[in-house]
């Protein structure tokens, strides 16, 4: 409502500046880099853009409170946080919580589980969308292609909660689908040796189809005259995939691999949390779940924050390393 009221007033103030805008528009239209040279004085630009600052005010305030506020609160990882004393009033304890974590009995198991689970997940689920995209791209029956795509995307739109509910039904030892098909009665979920496979396979089932979008988009920009030329030369479909499509996907695939590698420590909390049982903890015990248990369930605020901070720190280091690599890789492959 206030927006529409503000319009007429702004129109009045905006009008006299018309001719200057005309000039700037002509010069800047061709080359965006020239703008800086021909800019109007800062003060004038500040006044002209007051409405934009007004729009930005709300997101900026929310971001400061709910994004930068928690960053300030990270210091409780180094304090003995007591709600009654507030953040800065709580006693400074240095690295006590980190020491406690690294000497806790399950610490290395959790780190190992976190890294291994994401590593397996990354390695197995990375090639599947590429293969699917290559096959779908060569499918010449457009109706079938459309149907396959629609169905493949479906699991992505289902909540993790539902996925895990389905997994529990399928993997149930008494009358679960998998046991019915195998004619066995194995309690898959309660075996720690099965946990990673269950996690990875269900992850592929849910996300591989959705993952094809980016590769299909890349393939759609492949020059079709290449296919025509290849056909004239007598190349089969599989030769076309091997020599035209696959090379076209390599840069994007490298990019995706690197990007997901930077998320190594950010393994999805939700699925692990929902699939964890007392009996599969040997492999399903990961840092994120421990952070939740300690922080929310046991209200160990400082301890939980410290573990979370350790996780974030590892991730940021990975991110920086990987972004450096990506930059180099992209210089080689894109330019």
């Amino acid at each position, binding site marked *: 409502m206030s*927006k529409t009221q503000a*319009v007429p007033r*702004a*129109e009045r103030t*905006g009008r006299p500046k018309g001719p200057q*805008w005309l000039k700037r528009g002509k010069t800047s*239209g061709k080359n*965006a880099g020239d*703008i800086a040279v021909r800019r*109007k004085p800062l003060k004038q630009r*500040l006044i002209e*853009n007051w409405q*934009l*600052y007004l*729009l930005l005010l709300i*997101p900026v305030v*929310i971001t400061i409170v*709910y994004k930068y506020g*928690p*960053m300030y*609160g*990270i210091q409780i990882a180094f304090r003995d946080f007591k709600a009654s004393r507030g953040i800065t009033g709580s006693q400074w304890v240095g690295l006590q919580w980190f020491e406690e974590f690294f000497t806790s009995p399950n610490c290395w198991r959790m780190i190992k589980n976190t890294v291994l689970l994401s590593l397996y997940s990354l390695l197995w689920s990375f090639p599947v969308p590429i293969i699917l995209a290559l*096959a*779908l791209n*060569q*499918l*010449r029956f457009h109706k079938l292609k459309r149907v*396959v795509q629609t*169905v*493949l*995307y*479906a*699991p992505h*739109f*289902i*909540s*993790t*909660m*539902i996925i*895990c509910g*389905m997994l529990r*039904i399928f993997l149930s030892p008494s009358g679960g689908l998998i046991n019915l098909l195998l004619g066995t009665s194995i309690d898959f979920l309660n075996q720690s040796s099965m946990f990673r496979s269950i996690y990875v396979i269900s992850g592929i089932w849910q996300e591989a189809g959705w993952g094809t*979008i980016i590769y299909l*988009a890349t393939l*759609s*920009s492949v020059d079709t005259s290449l296919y025509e030329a290849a*056909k004239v*030369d*007598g*190349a*089969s*479909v599989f030769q076309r995939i091997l020599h035209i499509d696959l090379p076209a996907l390599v840069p994007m695939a490298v990019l995706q691999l690197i*990007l997901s590698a930077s998320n190594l420590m950010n393994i999805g909390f939700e699925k692990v949390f929902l699939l964890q049982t007392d009996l599969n903890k040997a492999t399903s015990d990961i840092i994120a779940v421990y*952070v939740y248990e300690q*922080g*929310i369930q046991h209200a160990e605020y400082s301890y939980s*924050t410290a573990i979370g901070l350790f996780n974030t720190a590892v991730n940021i280091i990975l991110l920086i390393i990987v*972004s450096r690599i*990506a930059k180099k890789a*992209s210089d080689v492959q894109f330019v």
Partner: protein
Amino acid sequence: MSAKTKSVGKKPGGLSDRASDAILVVLCVAILLVVAYPLYYILVASLSDPYDVYAGKTFLAPSQFTLDGYAAVFSDDSILLGYWNSIKYTVAGTIFSVVMIYITAYPLSNPDLPGRKFFNIFFVITMYFGGGLIPTYLVVRDTGLINTIWAMFLPGGVAVSNMIIARNYFETSIPKELKEAAEIDGASKLRIFWDIIIPLSRPIMAVMVVFSMVAYWNDWFTALIYMTGEGRAPLPLVLRNILIASETSASQASMISGGYAELNKLTEMIKFASIIVAAAPMLIIYPFVQKLQYGPISVYFTEQDENGLWQSITDEEAQENSARAPAKSRASTRSTAPN
């Protein structure tokens, strides 16, 4: 055309086109079945007698067709309340997040806004670094959001990666001449936003709306932490008690015959039916996104990856990003334009 390619395909050099087409079709249909079958199995199970499901009689079609499971779901007050809560959170969250994306992206798409670089960095930092679970929880608690609908979306702030996509869209896909002509005619920045940017950015808005809807509909972790009060849980969290927590008690009960049996039967039926009921809304909506696929969604993904991560990871690179982004994404939209 297909006739022509088939005749060409008979040349030497591996399989003929017809044979490889057949292989591809078989492969794709097989994949289709693997992905679709679990969903189909649950659908069939929800329409069958649970004892027959566990006896393996419902691989292909319902056995002893019944709608009792659905009847039980729709007469279960906690599920209905969860459904209603989910709808509320989804509608409010989607409106909030799309509005936030727009009112952030539009100012930042103005090339001569003083402080543009600063604001870009200000938002991008939150993409890669956050306070973590507990510090965020403490802020949310201290600002009094616990058990209010605001807790579901306010702490999420601006969806920065989506904001970057919208910003690039405003910069490159909406003709600059239009904005400049409007300014010459005396339109204010807000007026341009309202009369030009919003109407002309419908495709990207549709994508943002659908993606936000899906995210809010499926979210339960936020509610697990912030919505602890009675009757506040969204549908997935309500289903947690049915799908996850009851697993042990149900299988224990199945060993005890007699009085528990009838109760257990109903629990199992509710399990199957509630999965279908909870998944259905998004499964009905998402095929509409597919129509947009080669337009905004492909732009969505490529832009997210090209401009989202490594170019804006450090301050220096973020500055570079804001300077380079317009030229780069203009090139990318041009290349996707024929689609």
